[in-house]
């Protein structure tokens, strides 16, 4: 279980980006954080993964206070984080990065299985460098594949749909459902996409640095897609035509 107590985060000039977030994410659930751009979602994800340090507040993971732990320590405790803007590496290959994520050198079959889940024709990719020769969509899928390879208790995905084509996006929905079913880990996904919201167990709406709504999908989603009362500043949530 992940528990956030009064998480605040201010810019150096004192402007508040997160203003006292209290949130409990139960184990084994798929929780989607949504809300307008600039509302603090990515900052919250980075604080959980240790990439940012909260100005105030405490973070508990599996009952342990991890507020003082750095990124590496949190990763080793079982927290994974897929960046919204993936990083490129000259010289490191897909095989290298997924091997690091899995903590072991994987055989070709295992690598291919992971890459296929994110819609990459695996054998063509495993020895490619994760550099400028890959497209934004390809590199995004490799970013997601790294988190799949880690198989941790908490997996955080920051806008996984960004840059992904429709076919791969459908496949991604299946992957998230499979992770929930087989890994029994917790998935925390930042997204605006209705199709991702539709598979959530719980939805949290963050806007203006505060939680505007949180609860089971059945309660929150109709409000989001309906009259915007739950979040007047939220745009329509990737609604199907």
């Amino acid at each position, binding site marked *: 279980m992940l528990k956030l107590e009064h998480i605040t985060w201010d810019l150096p000039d004192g402007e508040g980006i997160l203003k006292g977030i209290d949130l409990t994410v139960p184990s084994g659930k798929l929780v989607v954080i949504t809300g307008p751009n600039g509302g603090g979602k990515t900052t919250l994800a980075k604080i959980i993964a240790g990439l940012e340090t909260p100005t105030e507040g405490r973070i508990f993971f599996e009952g342990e206070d991890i507020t003082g732990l*750095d990124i*590496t320590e949190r*990763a080793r405790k079982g927290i*994974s984080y897929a960046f919204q803007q993936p*990083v490129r590496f*000259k*010289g490191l290959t897909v095989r290298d990065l997924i091997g*690091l994520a899995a*903590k072991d050198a994987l055989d070709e079959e295992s690598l291919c299985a992971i890459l296929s889940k994110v819609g990459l024709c695996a054998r063509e990719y495993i020895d490619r460098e994760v550099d400028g020769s890959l497209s934004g969509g390809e590199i995004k899928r490799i970013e997601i594949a790294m988190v799949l390879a*880690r198989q941790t208790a908490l997996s955080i995905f920051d806008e996984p749909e960004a840059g992904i084509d429709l076919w791969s996006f459908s496949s991604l929905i299946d992957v998230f459902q499979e992770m929930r079913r087989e890994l029994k880990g917790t998935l925390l996904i930042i997204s605006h996409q209705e199709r991702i919201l539709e598979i959530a167990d719980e939805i949290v709406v963050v806007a203006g640095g505060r939680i505007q709504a949180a609860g089971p999908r059945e309660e929150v989603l109709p409000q989001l897609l309906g009259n915007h009362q739950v979040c007047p500043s939220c745009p329509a949530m990737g609604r199907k035509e």
Partner: protein
Amino acid sequence: MNDTTKQLLELVSNWDGGFEGAFNIREDGGCAARQSTKNIQITSKTDQPGLEIHVKPGTVGERVYIPACVTKGGIDDLVYNDFYIGEGADIVVVAGCGVHNAEDSEARHNGIHRFFVGKGAHVRYEEKHLGTGNGSGARVIDPVTDVHLEEDAVLEMDTTQLGGVDHTRRVTTGHLAARARLLIRERLMTDGEEVAQTDFEVDLDGEDSGVDLVSRSVAKGHSKQSYRSVIRGNARCTGHSECDAIIADQGVVSAAPELVANNGDAALIHEAAIGKIAGEQLLKLQTLGLTREEAEQKIISGFLK
């Protein structure tokens, strides 16, 4: 051969007690061992120190090893090796150099290699340089590689220096005839007070000739590197030069690429990037469970792989 030479040979030319094919092992300025084959003849020059290596036309799949080792201070070794590669040959040349210095006086190796590659021939040239020993005397390696490619000839040069050399000036020149290709991959790491200077100068003289030059380097400690490349397009041709450098600690890198199009159909490109390891790269690897130090090491080893 002394034990230091054997250790250096393992490091710079993958020696495992012997070589398959033609070879000449140079130790402290002298010949420690030599073997020619039916297709590859190695003979001593008569007018200056060094070798002539003649590869018969059509020789395919053979290797020739020309490593040189300096094992003590006070040695200033200068050698001129000329390679004559016959038409249609396809061979590998391994020419590592190791300098060990446990003394106070300088140890130096200057290897001047000239390649005359015949029509349609293909050469893979592997060159690994290394310095060892804890003497206060400098370890210096100044290699010169001069490549002449006839029509349709190809030379791939893989050159590496990953530590221990206090001072190096690496000069490579190329002259390419029609449809010839020169591919160079340089990997270089310096640390402490080491100084490395790289100079490439290539003339693309023949129609549809091409050069692809990629240099990746890491400068740590207080080391200094300079990179200079000149590609002259004297005909319809393609030229690409890429210099990527990571700086760490107080390392200093300068890059001075130059492209000269002497022909309207010359297509020449240069890319250069110098900077510290990107913070995002470190963060990404830390989210996979690596410490910051492990992440730095992984990024550098991958970059220079």
